[in-house]
């Protein structure tokens, strides 16, 4: 997909002015936050499980090479095949090769962010193979030629009227007068249309939430059942997963499952948790004849051993974006690549380079809500700060920001001068602010004031007020 992360600011401006999008984004705030809270409150051991989950992944990452080897051996011994891909391009070629060998014309797909990351659909299409997304949200955005705007709710940026219009446009073999006004009708229609596709497909591609070293098992966690039909009906099942999905044992998976669904959708368990180990066995009457795993690095191995290693604990639950005021305001597409929200702001520069993804870590208010809800206790704000520092070191910030920070540094080293300048500046701003004491517009700060008002400063500097408070406190103490 085209990367538009470098124009994050412009993307955000468009998003903020998009009425449809703003209406749809209301569903994120309403749909996820309370449900998560309730599910968390209903499990007294939740915080303890978060610690466990963090420790499990830390251990797995510290021993990743060894667990990958164990996992591979187990997949082989259960009759599966493991393919290793350093880059997105290698992964695409491997998958195309598997499809060609299977004479595939149609490929069904379960929801998978990794295949978004490697741009699989476009590539297969260019090579004459038709990919069919089967998750309802993914199906909708495939019809629209869009990309997911949320890692677990790909079509969250849309309203039902938009979906209805798309279904009428694409499903033109169905009667014009059918009623599609309610989500139920839309889901029913998608279900009927996709049913035949599962049977038609020669290859089914899914992602994986976990890869279990102990048993060579891949696991998907879903609600719709499409991922299961995708993997059980075609002759060939391909699992595409990045290397950090490895977890040592089934017991470890069980721990993380308890925090995953609660953090994602507020469910205690997703409807379907499916553990797959190898292809069809002797005596089986269904299931795929071939089982392939494509293990993708694509930049992860370089994150190990750096300040971004913790990011590899991410289980893609989406809680950080569900609780992010920036995501609530601009939605997922503004982030310009596959992964939005706080997790995307940290991951994107790691995976596509700070030159392209470097603006994203600035898309944060540092309110800390993402870290407080992250089931894997990933210090997202801290990592965004790391990126900002790196970006600044490399001189990638816009000139005005560098100038501003440079100016601040100049004054910071000269505190007397700083206090003087601040004391002079404040009355000016405070006068300009008028009686409302808010600015709807300020020179050089259009990016800020276009969508919110800047409060005018109090009439005295922080330092002045601090001295006064101290004086009062000292008197009171006497």
């Amino acid at each position, binding site marked *: 997909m085209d990367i538009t992360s470098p124009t994050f600011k412009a993307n955000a401006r468009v998003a903020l002015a998009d009425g449809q999008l703003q209406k749809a984004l209301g569903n994120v705030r309403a749909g996820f936050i309370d449900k998560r809270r309730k599910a968390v409150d209903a499990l007294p051991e939740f915080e303890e499980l978060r610690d466990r989950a963090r420790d499990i992944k830390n251990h797995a990452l510290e021993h990743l090479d060894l667990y990958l080897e164990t996992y591979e051996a187990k997949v082989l011994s259960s009759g599966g095949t493991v393919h290793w891909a350093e880059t997105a391009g290698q992964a695409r070629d491997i998958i195309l090769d598997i499809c060609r060998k299977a004479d595939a014309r149609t490929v069904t797909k379960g929801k998978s962010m990794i295949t978004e990351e490697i741009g699989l659909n476009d590539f297969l299409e260019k090579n004459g193979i038709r990919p069919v997304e089967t998750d*309802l949200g993914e199906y909708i955005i495939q019809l629209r030629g869009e990309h997911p705007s949320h890692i677990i709710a790909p079509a969250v940026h849309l309203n039902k009227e938009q979906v209805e219009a798309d279904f009428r446009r694409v499903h033109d073999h169905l009667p014009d007068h059918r009623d599609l006004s309610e989500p139920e009708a839309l889901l029913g229609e998608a279900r009927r249309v996709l049913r035949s596709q599962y049977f038609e497909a020669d290859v089914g591609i899914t992602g994986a939430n976990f890869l279990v070293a102990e048993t060579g098992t891949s696991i998907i966690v879903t609600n719709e059942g499409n991922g299961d039909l995708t993997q059980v009906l075609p002759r060939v099942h391909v699992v595409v997963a990045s290397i950090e999905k490895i977890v040592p044992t089934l017991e470890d998976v069980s721990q993380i499952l308890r925090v995953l669904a609660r953090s994602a959708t507020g469910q205690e368990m997703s409807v379907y948790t499916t553990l797959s180990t190898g292809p069809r066995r002797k005596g089986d009457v269904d*299931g795929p004849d071939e089982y392939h795993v494509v293990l993708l690095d694509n930049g992860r191995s370089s994150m190990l051993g750096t300040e971004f290693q913790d990011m590899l604990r991410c289980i893609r639950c989406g809680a950080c974006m569900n609780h992010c005021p920036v995501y609530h305001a601009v939605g997922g597409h503004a982030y310009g690549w596959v992964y939005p929200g706080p997790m995307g702001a940290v991951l994107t520069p790691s995976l596509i380079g700070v030159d392209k993804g470097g603006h994203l870590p600035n898309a944060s208010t540092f309110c800390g809500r993402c870290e407080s809800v992250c089931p894997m206790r990933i210090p997202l704000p801290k990592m965004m700060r790391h990126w900002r520092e790196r970006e600044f070191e490399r001189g990638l910030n816009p000139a005005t920001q560098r100038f501003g920070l440079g100016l601040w540094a100049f004054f910071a080293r000269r505190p007397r001068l700083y206090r003087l300048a601040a004391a002079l500046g404040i009355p000016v701003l405070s006068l300009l602010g008028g009686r409302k004491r808010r600015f709807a517009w300020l020179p050089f700060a259009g990016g800020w004031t276009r969508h919110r008002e800047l409060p005018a400063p109090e009439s005295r500097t922080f330092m002045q007020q601090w001295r006064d408070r101290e004086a009062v406190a000292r008197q009171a103490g006497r």
Partner: protein
Amino acid sequence: MSARDTILGKVRSSLHAGANDQTRRKAVEERLKKAAPGVVPARGKLPSAQRVALFSEMAGKLSASVEHVRKAADVPKAVTEYLRGRNLPSAVRMGADPRLAAMPWGKQRALELRPGPSDGDDEAGVSHATAAIAETGTLVMTSGAENPTTINFLPEHHIVVVDAADIEGDLETVLARIRKAYGKGRMPRTVNLISGPSRSGDIEQKIILGAHGPRALHIIVVGG
């Protein structure tokens, strides 16, 4: 160098680890050998009768319907009545599970039994669960000719029989059972943990039952 060796090499160098570091190897071996359960919530740790009650309650919350019968021989009648109550055709898809096969289906004259995996045209399918989990109201299904995986997903109505004695408190207990049955480090081809009927919230975050999998999940608990 193969992609495999490059990736493993990069991982090692990023972690500053030698390929033959014995301490690391030992840590991994130990961990795999022990497969220690971690924090297991108190919720499921109950005596068996309460476990069954909790399972039914949790499955109900997930919009599954739950019914209890006294003995295995009562199942065919319960299935017939379920179909009749919902005006469904009197036919079910069913695998070769010996526990199901031993039930008196012949007494349900009008009921047609279709053997084998589902072909996508079945209104209803019957499976026997390997186990169930009280903590979350989850069914545990394992693949094979006994209970083909397609029956879990293709029919509109999935009817699942579970022995009360197989309802465990938590997933950890079930995993230990699977490990015992299949051998350490081995697994059935597919294990499906099923918590309620299929659903989607992809349109305006409104949860609707009956996405690509079954619209309805009916659980028949035997005994207990």
